């Protein structure tokens, strides 16, 4: 069934069409469309019957009280333990780490080629030094992990707290994704949502569209995982899983390749 047809069927189920004749005829033309209409209508009616929940006066008062208690505790605690010159010492420490990081990055760039972070993959034309042996490769990856750790420490040291709730797309956890890529290659990957829905065809379809938007039209979905973020796992279509299969992780919200393990 085409996307547009599903949209029309859903609009009919929601009672939002002024002229229903054409869509009703469309639905009557096949049992699949009729089933889609029945599902959309049943679910929409059930969901829209759910009442909007309200806080009681007591709960609302407790919420305000607890929040202000939390706010009062935090600034006081910070004020008592941090005289002004301590704050400057944090800035100095931050600068020290940033300068150190710049030196590490300089040295890293001159020593080895980066792996394919935030790219869909073909770096073969790059003029960076080519790392071929597996020992060198693992050394490069370790250095990259060390660099990632250093970056994280530096970020934390200067007090950037982007992580709780608002910042949606954190940098990928390369170590975690690398491990999951190995599990994919050996057929041991445990999916997240897809496992819960027993590889529901509609969800796979949704994910396939997402990886296509990410520029991986020639890939297929083999699972989905949760590591800090929710990713679709994709491999080249028709490829036999093995130690050399490139495994890509696509951010399910942004539909962008977050990491490719080659």
């Amino acid at each position, binding site marked *: 069934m085409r996307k547009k047809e599903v949209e029309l069927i859903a609009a009919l189920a929601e009672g939002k069409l002024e002229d229903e004749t054409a869509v009703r005829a469309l639905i009557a033309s096949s049992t699949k469309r009729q089933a889609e209409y029945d*599902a959309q209508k049943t679910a929409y009616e059930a969901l829209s019957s759910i009442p909007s*929940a*309200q*806080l009681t006066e007591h709960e609302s008062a407790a919420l305000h009280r*607890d929040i202000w208690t939390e706010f009062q505790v935090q600034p006081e605690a910070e004020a008592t333990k941090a005289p002004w010159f301590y704050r400057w010492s944090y800035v100095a420490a931050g600068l020290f780490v940033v300068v150190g990081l710049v030196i590490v990055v300089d040295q890293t760039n001159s020593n080895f080629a980066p792996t394919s972070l935030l790219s869909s993959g073909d770096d073969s034309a790059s003029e960076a030094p080519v790392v071929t042996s597996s020992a060198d490769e693992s050394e490069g990856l370790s250095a990259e992990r060390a660099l990632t750790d250093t970056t994280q420490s530096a970020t934390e040291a200067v007090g950037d707290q982007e992580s709780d709730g608002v910042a949606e797309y954190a940098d990928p956890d390369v170590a975690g994704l690398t491990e999951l890529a190995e599990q994919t290659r050996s057929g041991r990957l445990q999916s997240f*949502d897809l496992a819960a829905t027993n590889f529901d065809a509609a969800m796979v379809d949704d994910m396939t569209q997402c990886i296509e938007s990410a520029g991986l039209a020639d890939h297929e979905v083999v699972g989905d995982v949760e590591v800090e973020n929710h990713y679709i796992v994709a491999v080249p279509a028709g490829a036999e899983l093995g130690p050399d299969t490139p495994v890509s992780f696509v951010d399910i919200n942004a539909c962008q390749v977050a990491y490719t393990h080659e």
Partner: protein
Amino acid sequence: MTAPPHDAQLLARVVDGDHDAFNEIMRVHEGRVFSVCLRVLGDREKALDATQETFLTAFRKAHQFKGNAAVGTWLYRIAVNTCYDQLRKQKRRPSEPMPEHLDPADQSAHEAVEAAAVRPELREALDSLPPEFRAAVVLSDVEGMSLPDTAETLGVPVGTVKSRVFRGRRLLAKHLGNQMTS
């Protein structure tokens, strides 16, 4: 969602240290934030925790609000992300749902719980949906948000929201159908 200028002005005052302005923002939005959290998490106590966490985060991040979206949309987005975090934690450390903890003296609490009650089979069907699908159908079909507003709240394109809503409904109907036949 059209941004009431009032909200944005209040948030600017919050950044300047005006606590009354934050109380006012909470009063306007706490009901819907709680409602979204309750329908996504399915448990009143957890929804209250998530509502509190949402406003704590909003207060800490008030200076980062750029005004690209309505304050409400920004708050609901924080709320949904807070709920996702709670669901992930729950998945790692599964626990039995807590019984509703109500103040015996608070008669309105019992009435509120009853008024917000959802048929058990529907609750179960909603809980069975993947979190992204659940959030989409809650915002769109339960809270009655338009698809563009839902997309803005979830931070995804409208097409993705449509797809999640339609597929979420399909899964929900399938679950309800299975329950009726079993």
